[in-house]
């Protein structure tokens, strides 16, 4: 092996602490080497790879339908959306048009996934800032979504419900009823979240003007999802490049111009309302049809390159498949949003306090297995 380029040496009088790989606020095995001067953060150096499983390498030796089960384990809070991305890429490569029923069910499940992801974000974000009560309220409501998943998909978090050409199974007979019950319940409960946390003076003071990213920076760093939209960067793939049934629903893309931690939080809170709107438009109109197209037992993609991006709960997930005509992909690349969002962490948190670093880290809503893949 060639010589390793050395990590930057901290300046004198800098106090270096290791946040992680086991630390309550990094939500996983992320290690941040933080250089401090007193309470002030001078430099943050993310060290990742503690949960690197080589998913891209594994994909090269397995068949396309099997990839689904690996993408579940990338961003495990957007498992369904990750699966959808792979399925859409494969379907695009094969030129298969799935039935409307599949499209609508995929969209509903994607939005439910987004809601439960944002609920967990809210829960853990409150906890990062010291308000431990949020955690239980967030998880209480998330449980209802997971129950819907359990009934229809069989899994709660790692759903693996999509497959190339459609869905694994048809929806459960209770699906529509329970989803409607959940929407009704959550429309009443979501204002409770605002009452507990959003309006709190301490909460707002902790977040406003912290970790500000301008629109230009967001584009240059490729920040998408709620992080990009909080900076005024219109980057919602569902709007700009609709897939599944997003072209037949009306919803707003939430945009704020401030770009600070508080507005990243606000985008997610508002997105939950929009997700509920989308689900309500679709839930009563699930068209009849087959839940899966007939596929060959061994799926071989024609030689070529295929790229498809979807909007996960955290941003744009791009799937890039290079095929050489075999049953295994030649190369798979996942452009995961969290990986991109981690990069400017140093930029955002320079000059902030330790507590701000935790707040910024929380507002990015990083999922470490998605960074490492």
């Amino acid at each position, binding site marked *: 092996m060639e010589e390793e380029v050395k990590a930057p040496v901290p300046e004198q009088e800098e106090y270096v602490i290791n946040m992680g790989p086991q630390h309550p606020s990094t939500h996983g095995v992320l290690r941040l080497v933080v250089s401090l001067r007193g309470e002030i953060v001078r430099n943050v150096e993310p060290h990742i790879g503690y949960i690197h499983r080589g998913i891209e390498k594994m994909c090269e030796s397995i068949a396309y339908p099997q990839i689904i089960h690996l993408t579940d384990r990338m961003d495990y809070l957007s498992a369904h959306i990750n699966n959808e991305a792979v399925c859409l890429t494969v379907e695009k490569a094969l030129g298969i048009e799935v039935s409307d029923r599949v499209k609508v069910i995929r969209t509903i499940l994607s939005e439910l996934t987004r809601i439960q992801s944002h609920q967990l974000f809210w829960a853990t974000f409150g906890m990062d800032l010291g308000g431990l009560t949020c955690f239980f309220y967030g998880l209480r409501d998330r449980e209802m979504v997971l129950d819907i998943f359990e009934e229809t998909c069989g899994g709660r978090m790692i759903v693996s419900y999509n497959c190339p050409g459609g869905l694994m199974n048809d929806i459960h007979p209770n699906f529509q009823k329970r989803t409607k019950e959940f929407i009704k319940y959550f429309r009443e409960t979501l204002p409770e979240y605002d009452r507990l946390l959003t309006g709190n003076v301490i909460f707002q003071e902790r977040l406003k003007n912290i970790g500000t990213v301008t629109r230009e920076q967001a584009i240059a760093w*490729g920040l998408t999802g709620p992080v990009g939209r909080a900076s005024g960067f*219109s980057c919602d793939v569902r709007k700009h490049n609709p897939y599944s049934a997003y072209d037949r629903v009306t919803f707003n893309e939430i945009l704020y111009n401030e770009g600070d931690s508080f507005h990243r939080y606000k985008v997610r809170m508002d997105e939950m309302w929009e997700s509920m709107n989308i689900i309500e438009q679709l839930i009563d109109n699930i068209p009849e049809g087959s839940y899966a197209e007939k596929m060959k037992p061994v799926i071989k993609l024609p030689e*070529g*390159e295929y*790229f498809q991006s979807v909007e996960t709960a955290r941003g744009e997930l791009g799937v*890039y498949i290079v095929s050489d005509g075999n049953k295994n992909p030649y*190369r798979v690349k996942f*452009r995961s949003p969290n*990986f991109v969002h981690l990069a400017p962490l140093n930029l955002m948190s320079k000059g902030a306090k330790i507590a701000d670093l935790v707040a910024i880290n929380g507002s990015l809503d990083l999922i470490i297995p998605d960074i490492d893949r």
Partner: protein
Amino acid sequence: MENSQLAALAATIAPDAQVVQGKQFVEITLSPSDLFAVAEKLKSNSETALDMLVSVTGMDYGTELGTVYHLRSTIHKHMIVLKTRVTDRENPEIDSLCALWPAADFHEREAYDLLGIRFRNHPDLRRLFLDSTWGYPLRKDYKDDVNILAR
């Protein structure tokens, strides 16, 4: 702008490169020495205006190594794919695009880590996921008798 127009425009910006209108995007294949200059032009040209780097993919083509850049214009909403290849597998070097898109920082570190492609002028080229005792696992000739079970 349609892909065909975009391809024609790209051909004028990068005359030495091979511009193909692919199934999805316009694909520009060019030599590593031209990469930075062409990328800079594609970014600054007001009609292409590729201001967002979506992803950098390191590729192993068997005999050659390469990188694939997915670039997007947030103004015109189109995408262009840049491709480049190097033949030297021992010491592959490609210009870094960090100066144009800071997002390239982590993507290029990932490509360096997993494929061993060195990026010239990268501000902080270190391995990202793995430590220095590992080889380059995404290369096709990578052998790991301990961790990867051969089929």
